[in-house]
């Protein structure tokens, strides 16, 4: 029971950021800036000039006040009645607001039907008279996509890169893993140790020469550097597949050899078909890796039309960040959702794949 309690607490802590992202993504902008925060997005209505209108609450008034308009100023001001006498200059009284602590009023503006922009004209209504309904702003996604400008381009670029890197990784790693596990040849296991050792090399060490290499080929500013490498069997994936290939009984290969199959035929007709689950894991890891990669695109892509979703999201944030949190969260949600859906669909294979990396390693 205690365990259950701890797990619930932990789950709440871990899922809150994601829930908060979803919640913010579905809110109108003024609700992102309300304190205390609201978890669910709402729409507010009140009687304005005898008509029920959608409104945006702005300021809460908790003492008897007067709304005034200073001469030469367009915006109205709300002055507590006690301070009204201090007001210098000419002003026009717009409205007496008989608010107090128990009966607060709200200064509101009309909500434009399309989205977050509001008309500036203020109205005053008692808070009690404001009605509230749940309302998800699905339009935030449309607006976020519009604000990101090249969203569909980013998506297309990302999917193309995912396709090529997944193909490259699966094919090349399967070949290499086969050579490292199903054929006996002198020096094989030593060479495999070298392969494992390369995983220790931090990316920053090879980053500059890699950049210079692709630059001399004229590939900086194109997506090529982001997929070429995947056709040369990364050690991690080779390791995963080798692990699986070694668990296949050697007798299968021997029988096939006696029947006159070449190594290539054994690989294609026997090993690959049995290894579908492991190949799926490698493909999934690579897909996620490409989808999530930030540093690679940052290094090699220079034109906005070539950006991937991850880089595009960061670009959007660096241009619009800090104000339109609902759009930023909507955009983030669009980038996150496909990965999470893919994971939920393939959960079992995925978890098994990760477990392999740590246990048998």
């Amino acid at each position, binding site marked *: 029971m205690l365990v259950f309690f701890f797990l619930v607490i*932990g789950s709440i802590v871990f899922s809150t950021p994601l829930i908060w992202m979803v919640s913010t993504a579905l809110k109108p902008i003024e609700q992102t800036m309300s304190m205390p925060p609201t978890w669910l997005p709402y729409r507010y209505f009140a009687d304005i000039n005898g008509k029920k209108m959608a409104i945006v609450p702005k300021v809460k008034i908790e003492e008897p006040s007067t709304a005034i308009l200073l001469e030469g100023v367009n915006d109205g001001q709300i002055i507590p009645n006690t301070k009204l006498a201090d007001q210098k200059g000419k002003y026009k009284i717009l409205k007496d607001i008989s608010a107090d602590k128990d009966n607060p009023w709200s200064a509101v503006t009309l909500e434009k039907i399309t989205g977050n922009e509001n008309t500036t004209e203020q109205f005053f209504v008692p808070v009690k008279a404001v009605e509230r309904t749940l309302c998800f702003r699905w339009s935030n996604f449309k607006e976020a996509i519009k604000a990101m400008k090249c969203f569909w381009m980013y998506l297309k670029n990302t999917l193309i890169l995912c396709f090529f890197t997944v193909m490259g990784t699966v094919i090349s790693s399967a070949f290499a893993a086969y050579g490292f596990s199903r054929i006996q040849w002198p020096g094989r296991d030593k060479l495999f140790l070298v392969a494992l050792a390369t995983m220790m090399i931090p990316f920053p060490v090879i980053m500059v020469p890699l950049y210079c290499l692709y630059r001399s080929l004229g590939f900086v500013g194109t997506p090529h550097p982001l997929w070429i490498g995947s056709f040369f069997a990364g050690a991690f994936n080779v390791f995963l597949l080798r692990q699986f290939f070694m668990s296949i009984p050697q007798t299968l290969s021997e029988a096939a050899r006696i029947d006159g199959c070449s190594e290539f035929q054994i690989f294609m007709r026997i090993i690959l078909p049995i290894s579908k689950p492991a190949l799926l894991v490698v493909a999934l890891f690579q897909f996620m890796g490409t989808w999530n990669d930030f540093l690679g695109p940052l290094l090699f892509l220079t034109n906005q039309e070539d950006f991937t979703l991850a880089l595009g999201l960061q670009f959007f944030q660096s241009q619009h960040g800090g104000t339109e949190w609902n759009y930023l969260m909507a955009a983030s949600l669009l*980038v996150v959702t496909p990965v999470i859906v893919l994971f939920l669909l393939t959960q079992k294979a995925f978890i098994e794949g990760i477990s392999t990396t*740590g246990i048998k390693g």
Partner: protein
Amino acid sequence: MTRGEKYNLKMGLLFVSPWIIGFLVFTVYTVGASFFYSFCDYDVLSKPVFIGLTNYTDMASDSVFWKALYNTLIFAFFAIPLGLVSSICVAILLNMPVSGRPVFRTIFFLPSLVPLVATSMIWLWIFNGKFGLLNYFLNMAGLPGPEWLTNEHYTKPALVLTVVWGIGNSVVIYLAALQEVPVQLYESADIDGAGFLRKILHITLPSISPVIYFNLVMGIIGCLQVFAQPYIMFGAGTGGPNRSALFYAVYLYENAFTYNQMGYACAMAWILFMIILGLTYMATMLSRKHIHYGE
């Protein structure tokens, strides 16, 4: 060598050739070039000029370099143990017979799937000083909420939290290890009347010690190279208030691609490599006594 052996060698090398070519081009060449550039003045546009150890001696007197190194080590010093302890705790809890285990496991795992760019966005919003969720909770608990992202004393704790949120991967690895611990060990401990804590200390932790070591090494490698979150959350490489969130990899990137000091960046990369190797070696020595490999 018999004909069969020759054939096997030929076929083996043929199958492994994608890796061999990749190894030669993307590892041997790049590592060699990186080592060479680290002794050069190199700006990509003109040819590298050999300048001996100048990059390394420059580094010793570059106060920003020391700041970046300090930031990274402090960050790692907190992030690695915190990540290690919390993921082991979560894994132990998840390994107990409670209802809804798959759901809990998914919830703990999901954050590690979120692309780092999106992770950074989410936490930027949560750490927001004015409307952020974290400060709202802190205020509710009667604590003053700091300006996480603009106060230099809070930028590193903020990043530690961001990184620890993504422990799902190691939780899954620990969980798999926990499930391989022989049940008999617990049964005989029960007979001896060992309590929960004793069983954890004397059976569970020793049994999964190789995996703890694996995750520790991964943590060292990952934390010292942390790039995306600080780069995105603290103004694309400026390093945040008073450079308090300028991390090693970020400064290295800045040197290479903003100041075009490729040689200096390579020298920095080699020092990073040495630090990682040194820490990994220390971790290996420290844990050697405590790792129990199963029979």
